[in-house]
């Protein structure tokens, strides 16, 4: 099983890559880690005439902190997120999420940027980036623009990114002090996408939750931000009844597609349970941070 015919390009710079995208238009597709695109090409779900491989552009990878913001190159591999002391120190939610993505070999190839722009609701980083209020730096032929992760996802495989743009960097504000985090993912086996998953960030002011972020993976056509669930917790002392209320609000916005992982009812139920667990874990961690 091999992909159909295409012409292969391996540009050495983002500018060169952008030129190729402009030149070949709809015919071109960017190759990052390749673990979503190449299987789709084998199955002829994708048949690009030109493949623009951005694996030879070293400036696209790397992690740094500048003035309270983490800058993560789009081509940073999942395993390099896991190996980053800076991330474990400043935003452990990101490497913890990378650890539950696929398996060791795939994480050697798969990139955070590919996971973010692919647009499959099963990808894990998108919901986490929404919970973290991350910004995505997109470069196109007319220059650079920055768009918030919240609002970036318009539908399945449909984002705000234009065909002639490349995601170059992800900017993540370091979470405030006394913020607890969790990403709880239910999956059937190693390597599987989530049956349902929830990302939670809770910032505490003493016993009161001053800010809450709750987002969901793979229970709708896009990652979902559970605004009403967040509002249920914000400004409150979180107790068992409030956790139940937040879980119910999160379940209310789920619109999952039935597949081999389960029917709609089961997935919605699991999204509620992942939300409960993530709130409890985030709360526990906030108390210790």
């Amino acid at each position, binding site marked *: *099983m*091999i*992909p*159909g*015919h*295409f*012409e*292969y390009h*391996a540009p050495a710079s983002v500018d060169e890559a952008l030129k190729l995208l402009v030149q070949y238009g709809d015919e071109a597709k960017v190759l990052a880690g*390749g*673990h979503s695109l*190449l*299987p789709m090409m*084998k199955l002829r779900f994708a048949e690009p005439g030109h*493949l623009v*491989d951005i*694996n030879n552009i070293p400036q696209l990878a790397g992690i740094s902190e500048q003035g309270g913001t983490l800058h993560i190159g789009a081509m940073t591999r999942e*395993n390099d997120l896991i190996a980053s002391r800076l991330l474990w120190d400043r935003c452990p939610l990101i490497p913890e999420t990378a650890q539950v993505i*696929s*398996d*060791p*070999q*795939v994480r*050697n*190839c798969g990139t955070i940027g590919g996971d973010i722009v692919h647009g499959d609701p099963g990808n894990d980083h998108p919901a986490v980036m929404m919970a973290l209020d991350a910004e995505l730096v997109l470069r196109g032929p007319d220059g650079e623009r920055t768009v918030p992760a919240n609002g970036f996802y318009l539908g399945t495989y449909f984002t705000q990114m234009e065909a002639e743009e490349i995601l170059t960097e992800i900017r993540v504000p370091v979470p405030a002090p006394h913020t607890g985090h969790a990403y709880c993912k239910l999956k059937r086996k*190693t*390597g599987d996408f989530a049956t349902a998953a929830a990302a939670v960030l809770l910032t505490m002011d003493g016993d009161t939750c001053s800010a809450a972020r709750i987002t969901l993976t793979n229970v709708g056509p896009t990652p979902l931000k559970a605004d009403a669930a967040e509002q249920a917790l914000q400004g409150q002392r979180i107790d068992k009844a409030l956790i139940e209320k937040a879980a119910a609000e999160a379940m209310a916005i789920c619109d999952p597609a039935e597949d081999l992982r389960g029917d709609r009812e089961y997935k919605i139920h699991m999204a509620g349970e992942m939300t409960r667990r993530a709130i409890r874990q985030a709360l526990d961690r906030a108390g210790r941070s």
Partner: protein
Amino acid sequence: MAKQQISFTLNGEAVDALVEPRHLLIHVLREALGQTGSHIGCETSHCGACTVDLNGRSVKSCTVLAVQADGGEVLTVEGLAKNGELHPVQEGFMQEHGLQCGFCTPGMMVRAYRFLQDNPDPTEAQIRAGMSGNLCRCTGYQNIVKAVMYAAKKLREQQPA
């Protein structure tokens, strides 16, 4: 579609191949270079039978284009034994009965080789996590874990303290 010349190091030796961009690394290894140790399993990057080492990292060679190996360094199961002596990972799989049908074994061993380079003194849980990208339908994994443990011990003993 035009073929293109690629060159890389395979198990320590320089090799060339003429490939189409759409050819996957596993196919070039097996069909153009005659190294049939790495197996084609699921072809969808799930099973790990095609695992090889590319530039010091384990990858599934069914989901890497051969052109992406150009200029790189590849290790397959054929490169594990040296001077007629089995690598400790191979010895471990033999001694601990870490295989039954053997189909997954080349990928398992090349993955175990890299895993032990990265983590020479692993716990059982770390082995299970580190080997989680390789599926075996025969053994139930127990003896594979033992084989990796055996190899870890032997490799540590070989290292000058």
